């Protein structure tokens, strides 16, 4: 932990294809065709960033918020977005595409540069990556950094941060669980924790001129080869027409006898 009472925060961010736009898969199984693809900041990383900024807005002693992205030149924009949202410093660690596609390899590769940046009191990650739908990055990074972590945080109370503890609530299947955690700690942030706001224009303009610090990533293990495949087609929809009573009866009959799911 930091020697003074103020917290140093780290937020790993990531660019992802805009999930509202259609994607075309490359025929070689290499993933979405980057041509014409629009990239945005992963919405879960945005929640983590907004949570970090809110701690400062609440009056907590926050010494520094560092945003870290892995990748190449294409990932500079997501760091500018992080700066506009309120990060103080942006760091880009050079990573190749194969490592980026694998949550665990990415965490292993980023652990070295993170250690090189000095001690952090709080690391905030998204609960999962929205593109690969993988939730392994945050927990894997916590293990690499030898930090405890709590996953899926929906409430964060930092009023006792001065005493070195946080009160957090996380969501699991059908329940909310409360924990008191000692700093330093890593939290993965779930939707509902904070609603990210669009940054104001002057901050966006200022962020365009802010420096991006480049570091090299650590060695990682080679990820297992992957292929990205299209979904198998679904058979066409069977429409049931008629009066509501008749449709209901026919639907229940088909669900029982044809689809056998009731």
């Amino acid at each position, binding site marked *: 932990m930091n020697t003074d009472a103020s917290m140093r925060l780290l937020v790993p961010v990531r660019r992802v294809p805009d*999930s*509202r736009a*259609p*994607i075309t898969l490359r025929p070689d*199984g290499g993933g*979405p065709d980057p041509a014409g693809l629009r990239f945005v900041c992963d919405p*879960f990383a945005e929640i983590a960033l907004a949570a970090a900024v809110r701690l400062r807005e609440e009056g907590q002693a926050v010494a520094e918020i560092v945003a870290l992205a892995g990748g190449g030149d294409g990932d500079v924009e997501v760091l500018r977005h992080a700066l506009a949202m309120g990060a103080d410093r942006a760091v880009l660690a050079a990573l190749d595409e194969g490592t980026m596609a694998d*949550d*665990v390899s990415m*965490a*292993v590769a980023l652990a070295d540069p993170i250690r090189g940046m000095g001690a952090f009191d709080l690391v905030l990650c998204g609960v999962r990556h*929205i593109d690969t*739908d*993988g*939730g*392994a990055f945050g*927990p*894997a990074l*916590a*293990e690499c950094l030898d930090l*405890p*972590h*709590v*996953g899926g945080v929906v409430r964060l109370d930092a009023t006792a941060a001065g005493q070195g503890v946080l009160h957090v609530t*996380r*969501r*699991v299947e*059908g*329940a*909310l*669980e*409360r*924990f008191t955690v000692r700093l330093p*700690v890593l939290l993965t942030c779930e*939707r509902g924790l904070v609603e990210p706001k669009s940054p104001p224009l002057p901050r966006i303009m200022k962020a365009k001129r802010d420096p991006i610090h480049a570091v090299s990533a650590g060695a990682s*293990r080679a990820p*297992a*080869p*992957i*292929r*990205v*495949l*299209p*979904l198998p087609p*679904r*058979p066409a*929809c*069977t*429409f*049931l*027409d008629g009066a*509501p009573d008749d*449709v*209901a*009866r026919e*639907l*229940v009959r088909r*669900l029982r006898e044809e*689809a056998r*799911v009731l």
Partner: protein
Amino acid sequence: MSTAAPLLLIPELRDGVLHPTTARLFGAGTALAEARSAPLVALLIGDGAETQAPRAQALGAGTVYTMSGDVPGPGSAQAWTRACASAVDAIAPSVVMMAATAVARDVAPRLAVRLGASLADACQSVAVDGGHLLVRRSAYGGRALVEQRLPADARIVLTIRPASFEARTPATHATGPVEAIPVPDGAASDGVEPRGSERVGGERPDVTEAEIIVAGGRSLKSAENFRLLEDLADALGGAVGASRAAVDAGMQPHERQIGLTGKTVAPRLYLAVGIDGAIQHLAGMRGSRVIVAVNTRRDAPIFEHATYGCVHDLFELVPCLTREIRRAQGA
């Protein structure tokens, strides 16, 4: 007797009993163990480990390893990982399998890092292909599948999406060896102290655990109108879900949201009521086995993914459907 390294299942114990996903974890585990001619063993950690061991054996585990006493709750992911890793060292399995619950989401990646193993997360299918393990999972908001090819001789930590696998029927009579594994030093605490929990969503199952889901969208118009879907879900023994639009409009709580920024589900039956089928929503549910869509617009995108479609006003059709299901159950 096979000499292959065992396949280790780590089912979750919640409140001292095996989690509902356990039968499906054993379904997936048994199939893979047979394909690899490997013995199937299980590790139970925490309160209830000993009392639940016979149930794990009835589901197909040979040896059951137990670790209980001064072990952390699974909410302490770092301490729990240390406990699992210590047991894995003792058991020396080739593959470690867990059901993809919130606990596994937090523990499996840590375990993979700690063991230097490959991680295959939230798998929807697992197959043996020569010297490789071929696993598939959904990605890009349910718009694609990612296939991972893992060398079979490497150590693998694998989590399975329970809804994608058939549940194993327990044998009526099963016994086998039960071996206690000591709690390792340093596994007691990791600075994460539990401070209690509360159930949310009442008695209905959570959407991630339900076999049947009735989900509603903005067309429900108000929180009160979701009562219609709750009645239908109760008739079916299912859960209630919602689109992002319905959650953002304050009609339903976050924990019911299904979609890209909500939960991903793949139940046996999914009823999409008054949901148009935005990419955001489709991402979370298109893996469902059978999809029924109720919408007033025949050109709504949801029908492109539905098995059965009803072009109807939901306020007229849903009460009829609830009545018909109750009637069919009474028959």
